């Protein structure tokens, strides 16, 4: 098998194949990165809306709860198909990449919103009381008091989710988006050995997720320092 791989190497790493993998890597990266950024931003927003106990926020609170509870329970593949067929039904001529991107953003938002909610709720109630007694607004309470204390609870599971999430973007290949898993399948179909193809795909996924995990650790150190404990 090793002989076969060595034999295939020059042909496998041809200019066009490398370009093909680079493009696929770019698509996986774009799906993951945009999904993470959008998911993180909207997830925070939904969690903040969900925790706001003021009566005026009730309709938004219900809407965000329904969104979060719904999308956390639907498998990614089903969400992908749902978005795909909804846009098809609306006769919207969207690129497959856009369909996949919308799906990953929906899923990431729902999951991260739940992680953020539990993180925010883990901060002791007395911190909310103290802020309220000093006339902090809801947003000031979150920004100045609660979120800085919740980072250490929020960040590890969020980055754990991101790493899982990069791998889940492989499902976008099911609707024909040429990302890493799809590229692997294509190269395998072209006759290259599975070990070589999927070994390369593995290395590329690792290249994406390892720096992300390191970045997560860096953020944890920066945003949630431990002092004398």
């Amino acid at each position, binding site marked *: 098998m090793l002989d076969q791989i060595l034999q295939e190497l020059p042909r496998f790493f041809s200019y066009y194949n490398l370009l093909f993998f680079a493009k696929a890597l770019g698509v996986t990266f774009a799906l993951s990165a945009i999904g993470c950024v959008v998911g993180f931003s909207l997830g925070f927003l939904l969690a903040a809306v969900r925790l706001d106990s003021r009566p005026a926020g009730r309709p938004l609170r219900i809407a965000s709860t329904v969104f979060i509870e719904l999308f956390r329970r639907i498998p990614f593949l089903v969400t992908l198909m749902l978005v795909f067929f909804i846009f098809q039904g609306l006769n919207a001529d969207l690129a497959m990449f856009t369909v996949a991107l919308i799906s990953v953003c929906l899923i990431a938002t729902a999951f991260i919103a739940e992680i953020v909610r539990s993180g925010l709720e883990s901060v002791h109630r*007395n911190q909310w009381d*103290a802020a*309220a*007694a*000093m006339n902090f607004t809801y947003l000031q309470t979150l920004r*100045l008091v609660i979120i800085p204390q919740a980072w250490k609870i929020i960040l590890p599971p969020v980055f754990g989710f991101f790493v899982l999430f990069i791998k889940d973007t492989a499902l976008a290949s099911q609707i024909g988006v040429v990302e890493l898993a799809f590229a692997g399948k294509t190269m395998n179909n072209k006759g290259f050995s599975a070990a070589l193809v999927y070994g390369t795909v593995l290395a590329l996924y690792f290249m994406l997720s390892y720096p992300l995990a390191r970045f997560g650790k860096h953020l944890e150190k920066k945003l949630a320092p431990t002092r004398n404990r």
Partner: protein
Amino acid sequence: MPQLEIVDLKANYGAHTVLERINLSVEKGEIVSLIGPSGSGKSTLLRVLMGLLPPIEGQVRIDGESLDYNDREQLRRIRSQMAIVFQQYNLFQNMTVLDNVTVAPIKVKGRPRKQVEDYAIQLLEKVGMGAKLQAYPDQLSGGQQQRVAIARALALQPGILLLDEVTAALDPELVNEVLDTVRLLAAEGMTMFIVSHEMGFVREVSSKVVFMADGHVVEIGGPRQIFDEPREARTRDFVGKILRH
């Protein structure tokens, strides 16, 4: 005119009534102590006054003006007139001592940072915490945290200070350092509401003592009346038990 007037105040936790027909008036500079058995509603009354548990009936008047806890703007005014020190200190764990004291005057009241910091340092020195400006709450003892909490409340320049069992969570040797700070404020004429189980202290500093039981005010009087000549049987019973120990 009383600085604070509480008229027929009622509050519930869910369906359970925790305060009923509370009537009390406080003149400027008075020190009112709330005493009574656990669960009698003393701390709850302070929470209600701060709007952390909105009253369902009755009125609270500050300087003669009746204020509505359900109106956000009026609630802001109530909270700018009063400051509370909690039993568990409730310092912001993510901030240094100095930031804990300055954050609300700077971010909420919009006062200039330099001026606020100078005043905060003065207050922290007054409560004996001037050397710990850059420490975090988890690096301080309970007594030190409580003194920072008192400085934080004072930095808001409240008209009335509410102290909720400020020594209850402290080791006995730390109690005096906090009580000394409160004595200092009493000498300066700060209007205070004190919930305390330190009966010797209550007797020493209070101008008025309110005995509460089961969410009601049972008896109000000067410290001598409440401790030496209580009129109500329940007060007599409570004080008798406390003084025996």
